[in-house]
């Protein structure tokens, strides 16, 4: 009989904490620790017990990249939290920070100008594509398809290039700020964005040929990790995982923010609920994101350039501010931004990142630092899939499910 310690050290004093006691496992089961130093696990550990080739129990053990985001959020000024929170998922920096900014704007009771909304949505969609491609790459290499990995990462470079043009940084843009966005669109951006959109559409067709319709890969994905609609709602899974199971939920649709109530796009919903459907959701979402990018670029081009920030932070700014904006398109911040006091209040905001819905709860007591910031990231909510969906699958299905829910440990651990 094998004995294993789950969840902590063996010292006598620690055993008082519930959940750290020594457990015995059944004789016929074989316990395999996948991760955290494992080529197929990422920064997490999944403890599986297998009977033959079939997993009977899976226990996700997260927290290897926990960075105390919520605590750090409580000790620093509001604006300083933006670069911090975007480090949860740096491929998805804008999407992750926009809901936080939305929450702040709700407390401040301001609405950013239309141009800022479009700029934010534009970067959000660029980030969404980049993050989906990242997910695709990881998914591909998890089921042994290294070409998918390299292709997705190469094409992600195009999106990163666009984001760099827009914000001046490849990944950690720190782009949205309370009341607006930090830069205006450069002159040559619309043309590059349209070219990139056309290129991406053609590449998606090639992805289909080599990956999604490839009989080998299709066999690996079809019917694996099936989550029925009821179960998906019960587990509270988010994003592509939920939409692949037939749940019509997308924060951009159900609680529209920024420019999403003005642009025309679809929320793809599949009924199949397996890994293949989750991959297809991503493909369809990339297509829709490309449409949003094109529309946003058209809108921005046809409207005159003005500072994409709320008047509260712009009307009283010195002439140098306007000069810099006209010359470089850069929105300078007022020095009061650093120690900005936000009126007392509580706000809850949600936004759709590539991996699903992220929610923020911000509570202010009128000080320059938040009293409480609660973040629930999409991967943290999807982690429950490991416990409830993985058992019953074969060992080789674990990477398929892992890759298909696009679980991203740094985001889940926060």
């Amino acid at each position, binding site marked *: 009989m094998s004995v294993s310690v789950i969840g902590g050290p063996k010292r006598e004093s620690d055993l008082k904490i519930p959940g750290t006691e020594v457990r015995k496992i059944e004789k016929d089961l074989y316990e*395999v620790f996948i991760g955290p130093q494992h080529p*197929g696990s990422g920064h997490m550990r999944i403890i599986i017990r297998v009977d033959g080739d079939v997993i009977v129990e899976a226990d996700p053990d997260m927290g290897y990249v926990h960075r105390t985001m919520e605590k750090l959020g409580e000790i620093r000024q509001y604006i300083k939290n933006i670069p911090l929170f975007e480090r949860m998922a740096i491929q998805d920096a804008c999407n992750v920070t926009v809901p936080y900014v939305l929450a702040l704007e709700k407390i401040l009771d301001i609405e950013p100008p239309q141009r800022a909304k479009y700029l934010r949505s534009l970067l959000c969609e660029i980030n969404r594509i980049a993050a989906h491609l990242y997910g695709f790459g990881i998914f*591909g290499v998890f*089921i*042994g398809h*290294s070409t998918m990995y390299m292709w997705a990462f190469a094409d992600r470079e195009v999106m990163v290039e666009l984001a760099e043009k827009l914000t001046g940084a490849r990944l950690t843009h720190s782009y949205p700020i309370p009341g607006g966005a930090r830069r205006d669109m450069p002159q040559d951006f619309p043309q590059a964005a349209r070219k990139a959109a056309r290129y991406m559409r053609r590449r998606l067709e090639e992805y289909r040929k080599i990956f999604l319709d490839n009989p*080998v890969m299709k066999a*690996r994905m079809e019917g694996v990790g099936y989550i029925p609609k009821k179960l998906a709602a019960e587990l509270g899974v988010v994003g592509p995982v939920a939409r692949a199971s037939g749940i019509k939920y997308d924060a951009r649709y159900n609680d529209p923010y920024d420019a999403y109530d003005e642009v025309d796009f679809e929320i793809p919903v599949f009924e199949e609920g397996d890994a293949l459907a989750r991959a297809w959701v991503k493909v369809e979402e990339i297509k829709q994101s490309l449409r949003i990018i094109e529309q946003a670029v058209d809108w921005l081009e046809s409207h005159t350039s003005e500072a994409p920030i709320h008047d509260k932070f712009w009307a009283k700014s010195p002439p140098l501010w306007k000069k810099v904006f006209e010359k470089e398109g850069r929105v300078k911040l007022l020095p009061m931004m650093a120690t900005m006091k936000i009126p007392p209040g509580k706000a809850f905001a949600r936004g759709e990142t590539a991996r699903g819905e992220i929610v923020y709860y911000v509570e202010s007591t009128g000080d320059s630092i938040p009293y409480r910031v609660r973040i629930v990231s999409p991967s943290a909510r999807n982690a429950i899939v490991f416990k409830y969906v993985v058992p019953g699958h074969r060992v*080789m299905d674990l*990477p398929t499910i892992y890759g298909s829910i696009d679980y991203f440990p740094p985001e889940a651990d926060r």
Partner: protein
Amino acid sequence: MSLVEVLASIVFYPPIYQLVIVGLIVTLGVVIIILWFERKATARVQRRLGPYHVAPKLAGMPQLLADLLRYAFQEIIIPRTVDRGVFITAPIIATVLSILPIAVVPFTSIPDYWPIPMDYSVLVALAISTVSPIFLVLAGWASNNKFSIIGGVREAFIITAYELIAILSILSVSAATLSFNFIDIVNAQMNTAWFIILNPIAFMAAFLAVLMSTSGFPFEIPESENEVVAGPFTEYSGILYGLNMGAAYMKRFAFSIILAVAFLGGWSPLTPGEGILYGYLLPSIVVIIKAFILMMVFSFLRSVYGRYRLDQALQGAWRLVFPMALIGFGIGIIEAYLGLT
């Protein structure tokens, strides 16, 4: 007799030539080149450069020599928990056995240059080729590591699936020519057409079986790193790991030579003539080139496919490839009955 002739007679003494020159030196060269090709071709498909910075003018070819040297001089770490004897000997025996089939395949039709009597050479080659996987399973078991054991078990599953297919599909050639003699098989192909044209289904089955036996994509299941780290080789390091990895490629080369002789006409466009040069060296080069091309095809598949799940691979093997092998065998019999060969 001049010195050159003496040397030639030693070097081209069939057992030495086939086992040492072709079996060790050429195989090593082929493995290195094919590894380079595999990395380079995969890189091209994946829009990368592949090996580059070690001599950019040679397209990074010396990278593989550097890797080889690194493996050779790396410290071999033997964990305390392993079964030492088996742990060390298993990869060595597996490597030796995987190149042994080369020693029984004829490279020419001239009896002077046959390493063994050729009457039952097909059977001998197939028999030898089936031994080496057992040592991979042993290596996994001796490692005493969970991932190694899972990998070893997967290897064992795969053996049961591909072995019958490999034997049956290659024997379909024997059925067609009514002979277990490689020489008869090649002669028959030279008289009519190559068996890849006469019996493509059997070739296809044999091709897939070789892919499975050498863990090529899409059947790279025992070593699949996303579940079982490196399968049976998880605990290995240094040259022992290199042997393990190399053994798969050597085995693939040995199988490719068997396939080249059985299906691709052996030394076909060439009729072996008098003397060592025309009778032995050139025909053997033709066979090696054919085997090399076959290996390039095997390697290219890496960039297109991922891997099957274990049960899917087994299902595919038994439900699809095994009937294919049977049909191929049937075609062989029909061809023999019709006197096509």
